[in-house]
């Protein structure tokens, strides 16, 4: 069928899309395949960081008691995460985690959004490295909070030993250990990564599929158009997924912190 290099050279559609479509050649050095320091993906991460920093610093340079429109917008993002995630999940003690949750939420939301923003059109979170970093931070955060709150022994006792009859504990403790301390970071990272990966793959399939059918047979042109219409529809779906996954990642992190802070199991 089509070779990757061949496609890039000829500007033709490669169908079906492969995993390799997620690993674009590096920008610096230009075109290198084994260099990952400065690629479109890492560039987008830096852009996201830059945009968020500039946006928040600019809109909160001179805060007023009666906010301007820009300040109000920045405040409502923070207020949303603070009140609807941190305080709702953790209670009043959640306010001190609100800054981190908001940073996390904004970062995930913006990097996710690159999946459907023209010219970016791929999310850095479709590379598992970035969700993994965020998941590890969440993992370290909730364990650290739990140990700090209860002390090492009591925290693990709280987390591992559910209030159940003793004869069921040999079954429950390994399950708790597995689900809380082993699966959590993986599920957190993989959920976000897989959603963004699959979303990008779907858009690729329908976009490239349209081109593939068109080049295979001119009579298939109406089906190609249908395929591209599907791409647009899926872009809306992708928008939903983008917002939802950013929200879910933040809520789950908050929920883990809440579980670590809780007195009882």
């Amino acid at each position: 069928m089509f070779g990757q290099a061949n496609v890039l050279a000829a500007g033709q559609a490669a169908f079906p899309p492969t995993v390799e479509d997620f690993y674009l050649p590096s920008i610096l050095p230009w075109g290198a395949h084994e260099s990952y320091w400065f690629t479109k993906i890492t560039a987008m991460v830096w852009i996201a960081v830059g945009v968020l920093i500039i946006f928040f610093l600019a809109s909160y340079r001179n805060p007023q008691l009666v906010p301007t429109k820009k300040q109000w917008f920045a405040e409502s993002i923070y207020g949303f995460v603070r009140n609807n995630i941190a305080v709702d999940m953790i209670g009043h003690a959640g306010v001190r985690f609100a800054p981190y949750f908001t940073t996390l939420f904004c970062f995930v939301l913006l990097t996710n959004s690159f999946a459907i923003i023209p010219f970016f059109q791929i999310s850095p979170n479709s590379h598992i490295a970035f969700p993994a970093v965020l998941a590890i931070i969440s993992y370290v955060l909730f364990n650290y909070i739990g140990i700090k709150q209860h002390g090492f022994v009591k925290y693990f006792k709280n987390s591992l030993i559910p209030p159940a009859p003793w004869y069921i504990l040999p079954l429950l403790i390994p399950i708790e250990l597995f689900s809380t301390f082993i699966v959590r970071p993986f599920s957190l990272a993989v959920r976000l990564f897989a959603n963004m990966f699959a979303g990008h793959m779907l858009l690729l399939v329908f976009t490239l599929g349209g081109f593939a059918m068109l080049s295979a047979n001119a009579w298939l042109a109406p089906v190609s158009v249908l395929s591209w219409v599907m791409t647009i529809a899926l872009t809306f779906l992708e928008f939903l997924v983008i917002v939802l996954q950013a929200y879910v990642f933040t809520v789950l992190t908050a929920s883990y912190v809440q579980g670590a802070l809780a007195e009882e199991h």
Partner: protein
Amino acid sequence: MYFLAAEGGESTHNPIIPLWQEIVVGSVAFAVLCFVLMKFVFPRMEQTFQARVDAIEGGIKRAEAAQAEANQLLEQYRAQLAEARTDAAKIRDDARADAEGIRQDVLAKAREESDRIIAAGKDQLAAERATIVRELRTEVGTIAVDLASKIVGESLADEARRKGTVDRFLSGLESTGAR
């Protein structure tokens, strides 16, 4: 890392295996983001929220203080008014008592005066009566003697006897009148 060098210098990637370079980039970039936002932006937002809460609660507190002050002033004025009313009532009572006293004084004086006048009148009347009685006694004696002389036709020579007769007669008269 799981890199399989494919033919033609291409590598196949396993999407589940993270690239360590991206982990480094992601960590650094996210750390920078966290540092800036969590140090310079969100704490200030929290401060602004707090300032807003304070502004609203402070307004309420100020209104409450003003209300309390107004109530206190009202109480004070009411107390003052009540005091003034009591004073006025007291002054009125005093005045009434004074007037009564003065009236009593005047009345007493008038009564005294009238008593005095009445007493003086009585004295004068008694004196006049005594004078009249004395004069009448003389006159009646003379008239009676004259009449008797005319009737009897003879002058009663004995002055001493005549006087004793008349006096006896008059005493008899007076004791009859007094009875």
